[in-house]
């Protein structure tokens, strides 16, 4: 049974038109020495062929842009209660990346079982929220399903330790979103945004809306939604005053490189199209410059 499942999905990847017509990847990231390199995926854990195709595209990128880890923005394993779900919806699609030593750091989404935190490959160490450091960047993975005072207090303590590092938060529900299915999580924003501002969080990643969107800086903070790395709500991005760039025609993932005070990003579709790219320059603890970017229309 397990063999059949493996074969089914490997065939789905091998035979898909997108895989047969691989496009040259136009890398916009500088691939500087000693930079922090990672990818961001959200709402990916469907186990459907599209997830595998995005994973293949990530693998292609990895050959030119050897990112060392992936942040997962929630809905990592849809319906993950049955044996085989983790294999079909995580281990198989990302096997080549896992084999290459790429680490995955998960945040929980509303479709995730909280017991995912005990799954070693998600690097959560049994915690629903946690932080880790890579180079000069501190990451804070939050559980936006359940933002209680204990978690808020923990976040403040951890952010206060951040010093001059970049501070990047990620979680499932977007504080700002032009996705028409969910939209902005205003309650979470009321609680989290003051903390982000106080401690100089520069960049926030979220999922939940099954589109890609980069939001214009809000009070100096850059917000990205990447909720289309497996699921997709085509046409669901209703461009608003918030939208700096977006894409809702196909699945996508984000790749990010941080070198010194510069953060470079490139959003790539399932078929290899660069749908957004640019650079954010950090100027002090909170301020950032207007990014130099290019994007396709949503």
């Amino acid at each position, binding site marked *: 049974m397990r063999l059949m499942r493996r074969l089914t999905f490997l065939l789905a990847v091998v035979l898909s038109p997108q895989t047969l017509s691989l496009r040259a990847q136009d890398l916009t990231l500088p691939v500087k020495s000693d930079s922090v390199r990672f990818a961001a995926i959200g709402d990916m854990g469907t186990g459907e062929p599209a997830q595998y195709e995005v994973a293949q595209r990530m693998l292609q990128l990895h050959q030119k842009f050897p990112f060392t880890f992936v942040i997962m923005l929630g809905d990592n394993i849809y319906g993950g209660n049955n044996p085989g779900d983790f294999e079909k919806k995580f281990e198989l699609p990302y096997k080549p990346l896992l084999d290459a030593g790429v680490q995955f750091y998960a945040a929980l989404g509303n479709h995730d079982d*909280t*017991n995912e935190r*005990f799954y070693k490959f998600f690097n959560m160490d049994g915690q629903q929220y946690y932080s880790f450091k890579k180079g000069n960047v501190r990451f804070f993975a939050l559980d*936006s*399903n*359940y933002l209680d*005072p*204990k978690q808020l207090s923990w976040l403040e303590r951890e952010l206060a330790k951040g010093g001059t590092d970049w501070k990047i938060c990620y979680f499932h529900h977007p504080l700002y979103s032009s996705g028409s299915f969910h939209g902005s999580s205003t*309650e979470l924003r009321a609680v989290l945004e003051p903390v982000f501002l106080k401690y100089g969080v520069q960049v926030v990643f979220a999922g939940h809306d099954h589109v890609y969107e980069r939001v214009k800086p809000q009070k100096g903070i850059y917000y990205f939604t990447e909720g289309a790395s497996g699921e997709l709500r085509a046409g669901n991005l209703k461009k608003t005053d918030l939208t700096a760039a977006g894409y809702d025609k196909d699945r996508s993932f984000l790749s990010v490189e941080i070198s010194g005070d510069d953060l470079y990003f490139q959003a790539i579709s399932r078929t290899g199209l660069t749908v957004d790219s640019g650079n954010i320059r950090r100027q002090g603890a909170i301020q950032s410059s207007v990014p130099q970017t290019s994007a396709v229309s949503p």
Partner: protein
Amino acid sequence: MGAIVWFMVLAGAALIPVSASPQQVSPASVDPPAWRGFNQRVQQYLVLRKALPQQRTTKRQEEIIDRRRALAQAIRESRAEAKQGDIFTPEISEQFLKVIRSAFQGSNASNVRRTIRQGEPVPSLHLTVNGAYPQHLPLTTVPPTLLLRLPQLPERLAYRIVGHDFVLQDTEARLVIDYISGALP
């Protein structure tokens, strides 16, 4: 902000209902001794729970599922006589209802409703104490401004919203420990 959060944590630890913007709950509207009773019952549950198998980090999903099932079964056997209202007693349910309903009124009510809608809520399901939390059910975000006003729960326990019901869930065992029917408007 830091001071506010620390105050909330300390207040939560003492089981004093916590007030927070944007909508304040009047301290007079809740009854601290009732919260203390709730906390004692939660602690009793944890004592029972401590002796049972725990989850631990593993590379194998099957282990996580097996441990969850074993834990759930052990909890069921340990509190076989448990029934609705054992933890959410009628007295404490009144306190919870007071806080929950106040969250659905006033200037922040639309944000609270929006938060719940965004969590892809499901229609009410039939819940049972010691019953499995429904599989494949998306987690409805519990509005953070509501969580700020309720007694804090220790690890492994969480408040959940299922339809109109307010649930105390064991997150590792995925069990319904107790619930208040029709708590949410």
